[in-house]
């Protein structure tokens, strides 16, 4: 048995470290936990790469012999598809952001966190954002590598920055949405159901698999309003080495959008979503 030191309550609190130091200490600890989980249960990481890889291989092959010149710009279908599958990879990963939070709510681990004198309870949200952002970028990079190996191209130095920047904006928006759902829905069954239902239709109703010019007008409208499209088109332009903020990348039924406008929409969307889930988080974490 240890003497009095282990047993006696602290008589005087230690000198208080700065708020920022405390915030980063708690956020890093929470993020580390998520990465330890991933390291010991890597199936999420593997599945998140495997699924889009299968898409890339199968879908890419599906239209391999399509007539030349069918697609705008005369690119091959594989090259066209690459941008779509990369965005889909990041999107699917970010859509799962709420799951660990939901499990913590359900199993009471969140209460353990909330009893602690956290400097800010948003460190819980911040840790999820950091974790899911790195996870989805790693998965997207793996898919970009696979696309390169399949001969579907590589964006090059500046293009790579455009791709990663665009993915970051999309991941931020989708993470906010998923975290909001994780606090609004009653349990993980419901959350998984929403993720399951949202996933594929959002992919099909975007320009990931086909350009708007192939679609009936109702679907064209949907695709032109789908946030995935706003990420896909700038990335597609980067892959073709044609990216510039002022270049038109999306010919939507309501008018032409430049890459810069697409990125602006994504920025507004993520800011808007984070602002709109804030009251919910405030309530649930207060």
């Amino acid at each position: 048995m240890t003497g009095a030191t282990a047993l006696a309550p602290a008589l005087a609190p230690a000198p208080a470290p700065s708020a920022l130091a405390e915030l980063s200490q708690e956020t890093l600890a929470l993020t580390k936990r998520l990465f330890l989980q991933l390291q010991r249960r890597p199936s999420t990481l593997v599945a998140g790469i495997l699924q889009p890889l299968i898409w890339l291989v199968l879908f890419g092959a599906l239209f391999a012999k399509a007539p030349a010149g069918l697609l705008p710009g005369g690119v091959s279908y594989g090259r066209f598809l690459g941008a779509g599958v990369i965005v889909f990879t990041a999107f699917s990963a970010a859509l799962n952001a709420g799951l660990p939070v939901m499990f913590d709510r359900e199993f009471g681990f969140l209460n353990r966190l909330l009893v602690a004198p956290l400097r800010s309870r948003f460190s819980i949200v911040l840790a999820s954002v950091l974790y899911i952002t790195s996870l989805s970028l790693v998965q997207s990079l793996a898919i970009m590598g696979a696309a390169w190996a399949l001969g579907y191209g590589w964006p090059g130095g500046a293009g790579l920055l455009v791709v990663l920047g665009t993915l970051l904006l999309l991941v931020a928006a989708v993470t906010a949405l998923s975290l909001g759902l994780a606090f609004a829905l009653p349990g993980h069954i419901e959350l998984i159901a929403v993720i399951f239902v949202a996933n594929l239709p959002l992919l099909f109703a975007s320009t990931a698999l086909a350009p708007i010019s192939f679609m009936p007008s109702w679907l064209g409208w949907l695709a032109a309003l789908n946030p995935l499209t706003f990420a896909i088109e700038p990335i597609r332009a980067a892959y073709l080495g044609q990216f510039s903020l002022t270049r038109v990348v999306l010919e939507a039924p309501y008018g032409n959008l430049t890459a810069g406008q697409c990125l602006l929409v994504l920025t507004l969307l993520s800011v808007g979503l984070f602002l709109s889930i804030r009251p919910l988080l405030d309530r649930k974490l207060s």
Partner: protein
Amino acid sequence: MIRLEKLSKRYGSVQALAGVSLEVPAGCLYGLLGPNGAGKTTVLRILCTLLAPDQGAVTIAGINALAEPRLARQQLGYVAQEVAIDKILTGRELLELQANLYHLPRAQRQRRIAELSELLSMDAWLDRRCGTYSGGMRRRLDLASGLLHSPAVLVLDEPTVGLDIESRTALWQVLQQLRDGGTTILLSSHYLEEVDALADRLAILDGGLVIAEGSPAELKRNLGGDRVTLRVREFASPQEAEQAQRLLQGCKGVRQVVINRAQGHAINLVVDGDEVLERLRQQLSEASLPVFSLAQSRPSLDDVYLQATGRTLLDAELAAVASRDPKAEKKQAMR
């Protein structure tokens, strides 16, 4: 050290707390006794700032916990009822996470984990994943995580439920050592003997109200009279028991005659003086009611509960278990 004033809390149509006031002096091991559903967990959740009361005030070490929850949390260690553990982490990783959430510097983190690992005999398994732990190990780990930051106040919600005797005795010892070291401890329990053996003071909670408060000795002494448990047969029929109850209620010097269903329709009563017991035997034999056994004892905490509510704690417990709604309970606990 802890002061709760007129706490009330309602979940939908259920009044969980109806004005609970408590005062726990510094360095006291305080027991909160009551059947399931009495409001114990609600009191502790409010105290630990997990739940806001509809009304009332909470003061911990002079801090208004409702206005300054973060400062209050620094003073508190909380060991919850349902142990939430991340199965994939090792015990040490979980303690490190917890220590970081309490902002302990690295050196202090390592030192506290080593100290507590020794105190709670966790060295042999602390580096194993939590998923492999037994109930007793989990409870010890949880206690350690509540103690990492050396809190002035330790709050435990039903800490020994589901523990084997050995683990329970070990836990009791640690709690007593902590109290002797100056920590103020508030623990809830629905085990009478636990509160009786451990607590310096206690409050009995029933239906969201404090129905008795004091030291165990004080509460028992105040009741007066001797407790008698009478069995007409080993397992009497309800009719026989009621017949005996009617008869006994007419006797002079006999109080509070109740049928204890949990003890095979035994009859609990209070007698004032030994001569009453003799008279009682006589009357029973006159009415040709047999006596299988007759046990006499000083008042226990169960008698304190019986006196205040008209039923035994075990009966209340059985009734509470029957009317429990796990779904609603889960919803209350979930954020």
